[in-house]
């Protein structure tokens, strides 16, 4: 076992907006010096969470050289379920091993 101050290889992703209600909408901002394989990261995360064929999960991102904005919109499931899915996808954006 090891104890560290940070996760090795993690990505810096900030939460810009979080809106919960009948629909959950989130906007995240990733800051980076090199491009990340967001398609691989989120396809893997969606497969793990059984969201690949699930309607009601809209995830889009726009990448520039030093940042990527990620938008998530969840329209189905209970509020708690939507919060857990958003948290899991945010963890994937930050910590998933490539």
């Amino acid at each position, binding site marked *: 076992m090891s104890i*560290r*101050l940070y*996760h090795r290889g993690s990505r810096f992703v900030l939460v810009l907006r979080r809106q919960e209600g009948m629909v959950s909408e989130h906007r995240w901002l990733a800051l980076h010096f090199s491009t990340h394989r967001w398609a691989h990261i989120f396809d893997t995360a969606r497969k*793990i969470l059984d969201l690949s064929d699930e309607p009601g999960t809209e995830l889009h991102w726009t990448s520039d050289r030093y940042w990527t904005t990620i938008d998530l919109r969840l329209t189905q499931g209970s509020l*708690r379920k939507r919060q*857990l*899915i958003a948290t899991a996808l945010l963890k994937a954006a930050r*910590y998933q091993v490539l």
Partner: protein
Amino acid sequence: MAVVSGSIDISVPPQKAYDFIATPEKATAFIPGLNRISNVAPAEPAVGRTWDYEFNWFGLVVAGQSRCSAAESPGRYQFQTVTGNRSTWTYRFEPNGTGTRVTLEVEYDVPQSILARVASEGALAKMNEDRGRETLANLKALLE
């Protein structure tokens, strides 16, 4: 050794609940503070399967390895943390009408040095009980 346990009724068949729990990568979705699961091997759930975990504990990252010690589909799934502080996580799945009663029991070592830092064994037990309850409630929310 300290033990925390709890149960919850989930409106899905035992096999669905078991398959969900037996996929280590899904744990980041329902276990509070668990941020990363990696190096799961082999791919199929079986006794001896191992994975690496990284856990956020009071702002520090605790990293270690776990190993599946029982995979009795769909009734019981168990794994142990094999590095650092030892713990054993046992999930039981019992049919309950059209759903499943999921019971989680966590048995863990509490090294005395950690006890000194948190000042009270009772406070640590309460924190782990709360975390166990939240884990089961999160599991229910995700599966239903």
